[in-house]
């Protein structure tokens, strides 16, 4: 332990050498592994760099320029040319400022919600009700804007909407189900358990199929709920079951003493849950909750099975249906990957901050 300060005083080169020996070359086998992996890394990195950056076609280049370099360099020109269709699908092009604005407002709402200053029930309610209505108006039109039917919605707004509302609205339902599963009232417990086990027992695709295809057959002809709405409700109901189990894990982690202390203070059931139990249970489940949110975010790409154009499909469709660009879908998919990574990384980073932040709270 007292090596550390001594180490810090020695020259940098010597320290580096020691670190290398300790971590990478501690034995012959380790040394060989290190060299092999290093070689592989350099070889792969070099190829990737050459393909994706050095030999790549950037900016608004023509297809012919890309064709000349096929196989040697990436053709980012496909993204430069088709990015609007990739982000917004078949939404009418003259109106695409509307989904763009909706995405920005939506991201703004998420950022504001993430900030501590906004953690008041009334502020959050005003923010989400106002923001959601504004986004809905921008997307759907009416009241001065050209109406755009939901069949034409697509791309990033759809992915964000399905994921965020799919989690946000599933959350209260999930908490209720978790409480219900641990309730002492037998009927409530039975209903909660059956719901959770039933939904967890089927894949999301099945639920989407039910919502989109079977449901339509049970309705009289001419009466049809919006397909997007049906999928959104299906996703909410599906996610609720998973969130319920995450929350239940948190509830079970709390010692009995918390319940007893609350009871000793004379708190009723709801007061106990809302003031004592849930705040602690939800805090310890933050990693699992963010995990399921990231899951939901990526699961939304399944909605293409019921012909809703999420972001991933919009990218695919933009590239593959264009006879000029259809051989450059790898670049399109890499673009989609970058966008997905951006969102998922931001989420996981925020969850780490949140955990630290709340843990600090806890100590003081």
């Amino acid at each position, binding site marked *: 332990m007292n090596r550390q300060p001594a180490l810090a005083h020695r020259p940098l080169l010597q320290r580096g050498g020691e670190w290398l020996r300790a971590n990478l070359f501690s034995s012959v086998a380790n040394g060989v592994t290190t060299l092999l992996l290093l070689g592989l890394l350099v070889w792969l990195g070099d190829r990737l760099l050459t393909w994706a950056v050095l030999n790549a076609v950037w900016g608004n280049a023509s297809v012919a320029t890309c*064709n000349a370099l096929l196989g040697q360099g990436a053709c980012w020109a496909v993204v430069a040319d088709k990015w609007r269709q990739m982000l917004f699908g078949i939404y*009418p092009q003259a109106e695409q400022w509307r989904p763009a604005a909706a995405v920005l407002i939506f991201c703004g709402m998420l950022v504001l919600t993430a900030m501590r200053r906004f953690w008041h029930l009334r502020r959050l309610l005003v923010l989400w009700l106002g923001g959601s209505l504004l986004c809905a108006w921008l997307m759907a039109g009416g009241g001065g804007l050209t109406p755009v039917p939901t069949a034409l919605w697509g791309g990033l707004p759809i992915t964000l909407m399905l994921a965020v509302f799919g989690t946000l609205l599933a959350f209260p339902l999930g908490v209720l189900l978790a409480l219900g599963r641990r309730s002492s009232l037998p009927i409530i417990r039975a209903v909660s358990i059956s719901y959770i086990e039933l939904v967890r027992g089927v894949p999301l695709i099945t639920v989407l199929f039910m919502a989109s295809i079977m449901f339509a057959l049970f*309705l009289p*002809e001419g009466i049809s709920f919006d397909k997007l709405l049906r999928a959104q409700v299906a996703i909410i109901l599906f996610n609720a079951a998973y969130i319920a189990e995450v929350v239940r894990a948190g509830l079970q982690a709390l010692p009995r003493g918390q319940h007893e202390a609350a009871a000793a203070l004379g708190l009723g059931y709801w007061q106990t849950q809302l003031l004592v139990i849930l705040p602690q249970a939800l805090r310890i489940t933050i990693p699992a909750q963010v995990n399921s949110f990231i899951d939901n975010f990526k699961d939304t790409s399944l909605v293409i099975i019921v012909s809703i154009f999420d972001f991933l499909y919009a990218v695919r469709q933009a590239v*593959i249906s264009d006879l000029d660009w*259809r051989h450059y879908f790898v670049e399109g998919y890499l673009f989609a990957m970058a966008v997905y990574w951006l969102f998922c990384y931001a989420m996981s980073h925020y969850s780490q901050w949140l955990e630290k932040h709340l843990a600090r709270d806890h100590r003081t």
Partner: protein
Amino acid sequence: MFEQQPIRHGLAALALGITASTALAGPTLDAIKQRGTLVCGVHTGLTGFSAPDKTGKYAGIDVDYCKALAAAILGNPDKVKYVPLTAQQRFTALQSGEIDILSRNTTWNSKRDTTMGSVFPGVWFFDGQAFVINSRKNPKVKKLADLDKASVCVETGTTTERNMADYARAHKLSFKPVVFEGQEATEKAFQSGRCDAYTTDASGIAAMLVNLPSRADYTVLPEIISKEPLAPMLRRNDQEFFAIARWMIFALQQAEESGVTQANVLQMKATSKDPAVQRLTGATAEVGKGLGLDSDWAVRAIQAVGNYGESWERNIKPLGLTRGMNSLWNKGGLMYPMPLD
């Protein structure tokens, strides 16, 4: 028969539940007119048939058919609401009344025509399954029989794999299917040399080959191993709408046969002495009246999308396909418009 047995009819309706109410609902044509839009089920993205063009609007030969119908019925080719549908969803969307017509490269076969509460007004496009090979890698392969024991890339979840197995069994050949998920993955695998051949519909192969930098390396084999007559699809018990859908196909093909085009249709209507043209454009016979439309119905459709040949040139020719079976009957093809009279 049914009128004499109201009780049995009622019981049947009860037994069928909601499905029965579908069958008893009013005609689609009235609903379309009342709504002011035609709701048309299309493919989510198949170049040449229905896919977003550079401006993000649906275009293709299947889309043109919807536009022609909207022009004839509602007087405006833009009054179409397109509902993009996956293969799994298309029939339910039609049965449940979510769409008025399915114009989504759907193969006309007996099962779909008899057991699904639907009907096909006529063939809009003749397709068929073909094979493409890398002729630089396999210079000796000239016909399908030369591909014996070869590996063939196919897309999963389609009938192509079954068709290939059927053909192999019938011709005592053996193919090694290499299955991939999704069209682009299958194409990429074939192009990178994973299989000796790639099989899918001829139109799909054409779409892959057009603009491919290494186009010269590939050869499409002459055999077509399956019949894929692609047709629009409607609900049963809708005679008026069925007649319009059927005669729209014939009218656009008749227009090509008679040389009536998007550009000259008004002039032809005014000046042509050809009786076929006069009946088509409504100058003499009242074809439109029999359909419950006005006499200009076909003129508006041709103004909107051109004749069948023009729609083909605009949508399918860029794929590099030749007309072949889709030529008119008097040019060696299978397209035979019944006489408008």
